[in-house]
């Protein structure tokens, strides 16, 4: 891949549910410190692909994963890696922001605390740092002790971002992270992702093409569980090779 260093390497990934194939033989390199946007019509497997990166697919629901995903050169599906260690490497923004049932402060302090940080002053500094990084500090600095559920949805999503960043991941995953937000908040979150890409690898799922055009460096087009086309954003948007990509970009399939 020209000019990109690979951060996540997906090799022959298959996800099945019983005899149904949800993801079909996906092989894909995700570039380091860029925004990779996964687009595709709803139901094509975007969420499943994103969750497979974080090992959040639940085998008890009958989902079976085959193949390899290398993160920093380590196969996250190898039996001897610890799942919490993998998940720490990635912060996740879900479709509907999911704040934890505790105060704003405790939300951001959650990951540092479970990973052993106890010292009050350091915790306070950490929380402030990540709230600033997520662009939320000014709005909440006077009410850190209030329940996170009292924030607006847009603020909650930025809180989720701060909370994820506080786990010190190298990767940010977003599953349609702006779909529940108003346009103003969406812009805010998009801008944050753009600001963060100098330090983080960002993988975002969206079904909004305009959003993809605004933020993507690298595009993956997923259709019926298959990667139809992937490449640098300008290239895919301007000269799509596959007829299905062309149809999707012109809005014929959605």
């Amino acid at each position, binding site marked *: 891949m020209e000019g990109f260093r690979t951060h996540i390497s997906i090799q022959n990934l298959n996800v099945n549910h019983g005899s149904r194939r949800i993801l079909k033989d996906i092989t894909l390199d995700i570039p380091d410190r860029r925004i990779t946007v996964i687009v595709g019509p709803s139901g094509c497997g975007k969420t499943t692909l994103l969750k497979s990166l*974080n090992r*959040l697919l*639940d*085998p*008890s*629901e*009958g989902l079976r994963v085959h193949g390899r995903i290398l993160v920093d050169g380590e196969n996250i599906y190898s039996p001897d890696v610890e799942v*919490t*260690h993998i*998940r*720490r490497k*990635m*912060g*996740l923004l*879900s479709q*509907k922001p*999911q*704040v*934890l*049932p*505790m*105060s704003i402060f405790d939300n951001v302090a*959650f*990951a540092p605390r*479970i*990973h052993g940080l106890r010292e009050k002053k350091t915790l306070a500094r950490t929380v402030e740092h990540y709230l600033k990084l997520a662009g939320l500090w000014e709005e909440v600095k006077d009410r850190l002790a209030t*329940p*996170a*559920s009292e924030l607006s949805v847009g603020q909650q999503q930025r809180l*989720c971002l701060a*909370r*994820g960043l506080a*786990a010190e991941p190298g990767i940010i995953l977003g599953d349609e992270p702006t779909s529940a937000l108003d346009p103003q908040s969406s812009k805010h979150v998009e801008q944050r992702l753009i600001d963060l890409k100098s330090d983080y690898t960002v993988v975002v799922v969206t079904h909004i093409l305009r959003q993809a055009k605004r933020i993507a460096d690298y595009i993956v087009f997923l259709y019926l569980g298959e990667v139809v086309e992937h490449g640098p954003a300008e290239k895919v948007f301007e000269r799509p090779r596959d007829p299905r990509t062309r149809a999707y970009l012109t809005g014929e399939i959605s």
Partner: protein
Amino acid sequence: MGLALFLVVGCLVFIVGTIVWKGLPALKLSMIFQTPKGGFYLGKEGGILNAILGSLALAGGATLLALLVSLPIVLYLNVYTGRRSRTAGFIRFSFDVLWGVPSIVYGAFGFLLMVFIGLRTSLLAGILTVALLELPIMSRAMDEVVRLVPRDLTDAAYSLGATRLETAFRVVVRQTLPGILTAVLIAFGRGIGDAASVLFTAGFTDRVPTSLLQPAATLPLAIFFQLGTPFAEVRERAYASAAVLTVLILAISLISRAAVRKYSRHTIR
């Protein structure tokens, strides 16, 4: 709707009214602050402090014990086993069956158990039996709320690198705290009001409980014994005891409502 309201409220007012009306002549401060005087069980003097404290100790101990068993089971069912696990389904079914078992059967079982391990009628035996009685009630009530915790919420905790244990105690318990509290208080109410399970296991005594290995009096049994006497004055005292028990249970519901409101502050809806 109007009729239903009338029936429910009517019943409540009628029951409480009758108890207070009939018990009022005997309802003195000495009733609450003294132990019985003048004759075993059937004293016409003194009060029922023995039964009040006995009931509180017994139901309190039993509820604590039931909670210590119940909470881990419910968290295990919901966090550790999959939604479609057969084992989990079987455990839930067992709780439903246990819920339906009459309390006299728990009493008889507790008695057998006592004989088997060589325990005499005592507060401890009562606590063990009532804990068994409360276990399915508490677990099922808790399970109903813990089940409703959204998948996305636990996923959020996992994605931060939390283990299942951390997710269970730091996120699931906090999210469902009001429901857990309600379950505990429902079980406590059931435990404090039950007579049949303590009849053979906790026994009865005129003294205030001081040791786990001594028999302990309970309010339902006090009512039972007082009501069974041929003396009108003692029967009157039964209604006074019933009024005390009712007020205790009422107080518990009020406390639980206040507590639920306090602890739902953080709950995500």
